[in-house]
């Protein structure tokens, strides 16, 4: 496990933080009151919303690190961008899976072409394409360069897609902001701890993934079988 050598302290710290937060988070979700209208199904949102934060954080990190990579040509930025995209896709998948389960119980439909939902789905496709692009390109320097351009384009497409779908797409079903009062009594803390936990999980997984990438030979953008 030499791959952790450069970030082992940070990795351990984020692991401990994640474990503590996860405990607090579990407790908060169990103790949180059931929603008077939606019942227990509303508790899915304590997973859904924090995962959405982590997913968007992942895509943001990918775009920013892609920009830094193109500017500096430093391979480390590329590793972080690739790892963040994987984490982004992972959390985004959780968002897209948990959303419909809740929506079926509350809206009565599995899916609605609401702007935020549609943009998240498109983002998921964009970053899946990003990961496919990485695995279908040969040569680590070329992979890094081409993926960085796509990572930046993907992030630029977020506001454009949102603007377009908001204009012409379906009606908005998601709350527009997180103003005080939109959450019931005792529901604020599980959300806050949930977001903190998701961000900690993101950070911990990112550190693990970047360490793994760095432990592979410097030329390899992917895992290779080693004796």
């Amino acid at each position, binding site marked *: 496990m030499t791959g952790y050598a450069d970030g082992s302290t940070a990795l351990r710290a984020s692991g401990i933080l994640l474990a503590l937060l996860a405990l607090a988070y579990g407790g908060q979700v169990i103790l949180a009151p059931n929603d008077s209208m939606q019942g227990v199904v509303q508790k899915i949102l304590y997973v859904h919303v924090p995962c959405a934060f982590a997913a968007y954080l992942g895509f943001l990190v990918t775009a920013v690190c892609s920009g830094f990579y*193109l500017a500096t040509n430093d391979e480390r930025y590329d590793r972080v961008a690739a790892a963040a995209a994987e984490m982004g896709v992972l959390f985004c998948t959780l968002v897209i899976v948990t959303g419909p389960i809740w929506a079926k119980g509350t809206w009565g439909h599995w899916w609605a072409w609401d702007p935020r939902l549609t943009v998240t789905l*498109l*983002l998921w*496709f*964009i970053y*899946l*394409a990003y990961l*496919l*692009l990485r695995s*279908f*390109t*040969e040569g680590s320097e*070329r992979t890094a*360069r*081409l993926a*960085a*351009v*796509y990572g*930046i*384009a*993907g992030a*630029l*497409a977020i506001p*454009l*897609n949102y*603007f*377009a*779908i908001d*204009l*012409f*797409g379906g009606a908005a079903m998601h709350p527009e902001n997180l103003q005080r009062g939109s959450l019931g009594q005792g529901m604020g803390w599980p959300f806050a701890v949930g977001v903190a936990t998701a961000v900690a999980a993101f950070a911990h997984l990112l550190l693990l993934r970047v360490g793994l990438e760095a432990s592979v030979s410097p030329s390899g953008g992917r895992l290779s079988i080693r004796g």
Partner: protein
Amino acid sequence: MNVFLAILWKDLLVEWRSRDRVVAMLVFSLLVVVVFHFSLPGGATAQTRATAPGLLWIAYVFAALLGLGRSFSAELENEALSGIALVPVDRGWVFLGKGAANLLVLGVVQAVTACVFALVFEVDLTPVAGRLAGVVALGSLGLCSIGTLFAAVAVRTRFREVMLPLLLLPLLVPVLLGSVRATSALLADGTAPFAAIQLLIVTDAVYLILSFLGFEYVLEE
């Protein structure tokens, strides 16, 4: 600027001499229109006419995907693409030349497809022909700018025919939404909504700038 004109002239000349790309795109997009006609029950009814603008744009996007992919895979022969990358100028101009050639070739295909489309779906395009051409040009500008950039990316990957649509389609949603909305409003009441045109202009500007700057990193010696 000279590089821009040189690349544009070279691409158009090659296209004029062989005419293989434009013919392939044209036949393909006409087939798509015909297949759409048969896959909709009942032929040309009011209902199919309502969905027609969307179908027209899908035919355009498919034809564009075909042509964009070809515009760079043809350059792989004799390492011509590396030769272009060695030209000591800002590669953004190379992008503009390639993109403009793609736009013009696509424009020819789009014009013919629109005529056949009007016949197949019994839509009268003549009263709005000028405005429709404007909307199609705006939509195609966005399509060809980001399309040319990622065609140059896809050509450097394995499975490049598959990679191009995967990379491009999620980014084309704003272009498609704006174009389809503007086209359907044009066909319905003869005017394009300002919001759709605005969306197309903003998207075109963002994608043009992104592609102009990004092309620097996409070409390699």
